[in-house]
């Protein structure tokens, strides 16, 4: 349904999107995961023709966005970053104007239904300037749905939502996929948000497609990363090096370390630590993808220590 190939976008010396390619299949929830500034939003903006890419192809429904922009945008509903509305208009007016601009005049029944769906029923005639950020975000989602698009693009849709709002959004996305067979592309910098709803996903880092695949496949696998909190991480790592000389271990700080290993060896590690009289304060495991994403986060936030 969506195919991006060799997309490049630079801003001066900075390459925001670097030869990125990805595919989205019809009827799936597709997650774009990446840190802030990874290039997710720029990619989405290129997809929606808000930004003109330097090179590369973006195709929707077999048509190119650069040549069939209006046809494509008529079939898309989108919410880019935070939802912004005409604050001096009511939610109802905002919704109707948005729909009309998409070339669709909604019935009152459809309007009521969409407001019900996003949890704004009863507030539709209030001016948007009286809305909280969460309510504005809900209205933004309503705007993406009102003209019944085939493809919904949501850039960081959970921004500004409270925990209940995030759960509601998640359920709504799943309903859109399951009941109305919509294709949904959403971006986030939080892995858990993506892994809970996305059928497929891509990790974007420094504008590149680092990994793409089915979410369940990426999140499964036997290799895990164990993070352990102890009294003295240096002495413990020495012990582990003797027991598992082939495994890479990493000191995180003076009281914690991590080690990459097979899931089946977890009990061996645990036993060795107990047998050596080491006090364990925390013992958590993450799969490879989680660890990879976390590593990216650390690369961006603090230096990584390798042993």
């Amino acid at each position, binding site marked *: 349904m969506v195919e991006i190939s060799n997309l490049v976008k630079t801003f001066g010396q900075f390459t925001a999107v670097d030869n990125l390619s990805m595919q989205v299949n019809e009827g799936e929830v597709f997650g774009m995961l990446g840190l802030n500034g990874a290039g997710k939003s720029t990619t989405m903006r290129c997809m929606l*023709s808000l930004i003109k890419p330097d090179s590369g192809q973006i195709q929707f429904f077999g048509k190119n966005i650069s040549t069939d922009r209006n046809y494509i945008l*008529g079939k898309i509903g989108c919410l880019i*970053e935070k939802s912004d509305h005409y604050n001096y208009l009511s939610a109802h007016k905002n919704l109707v*104007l948005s729909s009309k601009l998409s070339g669709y005049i909604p019935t009152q029944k459809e309007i009521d239904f969409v407001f019900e769906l996003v949890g704004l029923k009863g507030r539709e005639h209030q001016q948007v300037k009286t809305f909280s950020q969460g309510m504005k975000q809900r209205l933004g989602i309503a705007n993406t749905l009102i003209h019944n698009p085939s493809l919904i693009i949501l850039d960081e849709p959970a921004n500004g939502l409270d925990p209940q709002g995030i759960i509601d959004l998640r359920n709504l996305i799943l309903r859109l996929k399951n009941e109305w067979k919509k294709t949904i592309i959403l971006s986030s910098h939080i892995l858990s948000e993506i892994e809970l709803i996305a059928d497929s996903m891509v990790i974007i880092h420094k504008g590149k497609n680092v990994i793409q695949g089915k979410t369940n496949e990426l999140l499964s696998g036997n290799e895990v990363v164990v993070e352990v909190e102890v009294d003295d991480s240096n002495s413990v790592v020495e012990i582990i090096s003797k027991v598992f000389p082939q495994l890479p271990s990493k000191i995180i700080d003076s009281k914690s370390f991590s080690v990459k290993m097979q899931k089946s060896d977890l009990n061996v590690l645990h036993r060795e630590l107990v047998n050596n009289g080491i006090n364990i304060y925390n013992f958590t495991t993450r799969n490879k993808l989680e660890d990879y994403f976390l590593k990216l986060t650390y690369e961006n936030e603090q230096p990584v220590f390798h042993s």
Partner: protein
Amino acid sequence: MKMNSLYSIVKIECVKYWSKPRTYIGFIAITTIVLLIQLALYTDGKNYWDFLTQSLSQSFEIEGMEFNGNMVCFIILQTLIVQMPLMVALVSGDIVSGEVQSGTIRSLLTKPVSRTKILISKFIAAEIYTLALIIWLGVLAYFLSLFLFGKGDVVVLKSDALTVIRSADVGIRFLFAFFMAFLSLSVINCFAFMLSTFSNNSITPIVISMSVVILFTIIGTFDIPLFESIKPYLFTTHTIVWRNFFDNPIDWELIISSTCFLIVHIIVFLGASIYYFNKKDFLQ
């Protein structure tokens, strides 16, 4: 899913335009200024007029020189022409940049409407606002003045000549004058609009366009040789061309050349806006 016509987009833009409180500032300002002038002239207009024409009565016996609605309308138009560009700039300077600043441009540009169509519809909405402002001015300055002061000849006092326009001839001249004022305000409108497409915040284009209007007007008032040579090329110089409809005979050559000058400015400003807007990356 039907495609949007320009008409339907203009309608949407108008709804947005007329829902903004800022849109009404111009109307409130015009109403206040016009009513104040009318009140002042209603209470003390005769004395003022007598004082004004004192030097004339030394040489002539002046017949029928009564203060009338047409005169009041002329005075109002002459007084307000300095302020109206500022009112137009205040609203048009915000029309694109305001949407960029608030982020609503993202939603607008991801709709199945070309950027050119969006921009032209915004321009038309701004022009409708300008026209409405002129019509409102016309209603207050012309019809209300006629109602309050009655009909009569217009005595046009310029720095170097005095022209008397007969009452029967005044209405059509005002119609042309209001149209010409609309055209000259359209240039200011277009200028502010162009700056609005260039900018990502709403204050900068408003401030720049107002500053340019004030600067050009000041240059226009100084009779310094250096300024004299550049005056014909300033679009503000042509904002008072409406007054030429109150000459006898009407200098059509001057009016046509000014009209062409203003239209060329509109085309250039609008063309630059469309070109830039189509190329612009919306990163906000």
